């Protein structure tokens, strides 16, 4: 059986059993039933209940082995102690069981119960997710544990050892344009580990980029081997929780005292081409760049052109990008001469960074941007171009359509010069609600066209640096 065949019942189940729904209809599993119905799940749903014959209008069954068809995915949220017996009695009738209940290995007194749970899952012939997690969001299978989440299948596959953070990733990721091929919360990993799911996502044609939030990797060697053999076929972004600098307290050697957990993860990333990030924001920003832009190993990104309004912003971004090992160097004279022929108003800088005050950008109602970008693309040989607009600076000074035209011009230029340079849009605002609303509208439009949008230059820089490091890795090793 291939890894895809093995995990298809999880990501696209035809039958779902729900353990813990109450006849009164107010427990978390009842909410789960409501959510997957709303999400468009069309397969069979089997509530499992010791006494009730019907739950939420569905026929209920006494145990997992009793359902009319085998269960592809069982969602289990009842008190922990009763679960092992339930699983071991399933007699090969269940493919995947996700135990969201807690009170297992995450607490000292639950360690034995977790061992029992894992043994019961083996005895019952199923794979086990969790315990101590929240569930799965899989748009292709129309199953979700979350309130929100679009039905559209995207390219970002997520594995999260934390349930709550999994929800954050969906919510915040969506608001920044991420679209998911799946998100699995794996909790204590009593059976299925992030390595298993990583193998699936690497093979999964829907998934283009993989995000992993991980705290401990008990099967770290396997994780390393999977990543190593994948040879950076897909970008993998790792957010590691608990990166201690501390060496081994009891180390007998120099080497032992110098090796913290952090060193291991840095080593793993360098050797396998994974991107190791420090914050949830960096995680989402980095996933977004890989969702939208195609890594270009034949010409790794180094030279970046900045174009937009805000002189100080350009200067700060140039410094920030230099620290990220990106290079904002002035154009060659030919490009400068070509831009000079546009006879832009005084106060415009045309060397790179190309700094255009609002007065310049509103020329031709914003269509001037297209002329500037055309010259940069044709002559400036950018490896990446970051166009930044400080939306606040336009308020009260220009017609509203100027911003529309600027954004539209930037999109058109992409189509004219396909694959020439990575293009990123930074839309800066002061949080004023009307501006935020416009930003959202621009963002949706841009991301749909494959242009990533960031709130600040630094966010774009971090993501671009990650893309560059991935390209360099592939260039050196592929």
């Amino acid at each position, binding site marked *: 059986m291939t890894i895809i065949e093995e995990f298809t019942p999880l990501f696209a189940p035809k039958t779902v059993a729900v353990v813990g729904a109450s006849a009164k209809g107010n427990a978390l599993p009842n909410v789960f039933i409501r959510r997957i119905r709303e999400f468009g799940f069309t397969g069979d749903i089997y509530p499992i209940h010791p006494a009730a014959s019907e739950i939420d209008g569905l026929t209920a069954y006494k145990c997992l082995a009793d359902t009319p068809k085998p269960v592809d995915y069982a969602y289990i949220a009842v008190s922990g102690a009763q679960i092992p017996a339930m699983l071991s009695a399933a007699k090969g009738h269940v493919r995947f069981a996700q135990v969201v209940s807690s009170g297992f290995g995450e607490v000292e007194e639950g360690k034995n119960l977790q061992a029992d749970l894992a043994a019961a899952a083996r005895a019952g012939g199923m794979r086990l997710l969790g315990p101590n997690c929240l569930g799965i969001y899989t748009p292709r299978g129309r199953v979700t544990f979350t309130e929100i989440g679009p039905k559209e299948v995207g390219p970002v596959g997520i594995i999260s050892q934390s349930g709550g953070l999994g929800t954050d990733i969906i919510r915040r990721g969506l608001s920044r344009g991420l679209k998911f091929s799946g998100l699995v919360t794996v909790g204590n990993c009593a059976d299925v580990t992030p390595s298993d799911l990583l193998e699936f996502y690497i093979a999964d044609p829907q998934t283009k980029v993989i995000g992993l939030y991980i705290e401990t990797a008990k099967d770290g*060697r396997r994780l*390393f081997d999977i990543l190593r053999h994948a040879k950076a076929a897909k970008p993998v972004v790792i957010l590691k929780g608990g990166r201690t600098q501390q060496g081994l307290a009891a*180390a007998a050697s*120099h080497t*032992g005292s*110098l090796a913290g957990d952090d*060193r*291991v993860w840095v080593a793993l990333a360098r*050797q396998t081409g994974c991107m190791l990030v420090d914050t949830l924001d960096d995680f989402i920003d980095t996933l977004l760049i890989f969702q939208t832009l195609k890594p270009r190993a034949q010409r790794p990104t180094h030279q970046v052109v900045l174009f937009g309004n805000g002189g100080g912003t350009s200067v700060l971004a140039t410094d920030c990008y230099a620290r990220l090992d990106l290079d904002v160097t002035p154009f060659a004279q030919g490009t400068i001469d070509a831009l000079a022929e546009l006879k832009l108003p005084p106060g415009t800088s045309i060397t790179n960074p190309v700094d255009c005050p609002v007065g310049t950008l509103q020329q031709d109602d914003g269509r001037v941007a297209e002329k500037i970008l055309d010259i940069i693309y044709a002559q400036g040989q950018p490896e990446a171009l970051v166009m930044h607009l400080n939306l606040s600076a336009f308020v009260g000074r220009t017609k509203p359509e100027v911003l529309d035209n600027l954004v539209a011009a930037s999109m058109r230029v992409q189509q004219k010069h396909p694959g020439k340079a990575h293009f990123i849009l930074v839309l800066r605002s002061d949080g004023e609600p009307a501006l935020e609303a416009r930003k959202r509208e621009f963002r949706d439009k841009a991301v749909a066209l494959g242009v990533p949008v960031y709130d600040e230059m630094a966010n774009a820089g971090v993501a671009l640096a990650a893309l560059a490091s991935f390209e360099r890795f592939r260039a050196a090793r592929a």
Partner: protein
Amino acid sequence: MKDENPVAAARRAGRSALDESAGKQLLSAFGINVPQSRVAKGIGDADAAMSGLKVPVVVKVMSPDILHKSDAGGVKINLQSVAEVKAAITGMLTAPKIKGARIDGFLIEEMAPAGHELVIGGLRDPDFGPLVMVGLGGVFVEILKDVSFRLCPITRIDAEEMLAELKGVAILKGARGTKPASLDAIIDVLIKVGGDDGLLMQHAADISEADINPLIVSDTAAVAVDARFILG
């Protein structure tokens, strides 16, 4: 390969670490240069031990009871003759921190030519298995912690990147008028320690920690002058 695997022998003897001589035997079996050396039981066989060695030599006490040989007065360097070697051994036998210890013998070893001092280490992580480390010796490792780790097995590119990552790499390349170190020789040792067929992968089940300290690297060669292997 030696007829007896030093790791297996130490395990069988119930030792928790390889002594220096066994450690060097192990390094040598993996093709890593170690100084020519002989073991003398005492002054009685010092002459015989010295017969195949070129001066200057260094004498080091071999004892499972002495962890820090230099601190105990158990290392004498730059000895130019058999007489000086015998005097060194006699001196050690009366040193306060040595005379009560179990003594396996005295390692008499040719001195490595001058060069840059590096540390190459190994460690078995409970989740990830063997790791290999490299750093420049002295303050670079001890104070600045300027070291680079990789999971084993490493490739040649990994080894190159490990060195490139060190802040002190400019010194190896000959900054401040020093003679450059052979980066190729260091990379070669890193691969023999941490590569696919390297020492750490081949003995992953037995070696929990390792320090080759110092590895002395000239512009042409690298020599492992001291090594510690912790078993477990």
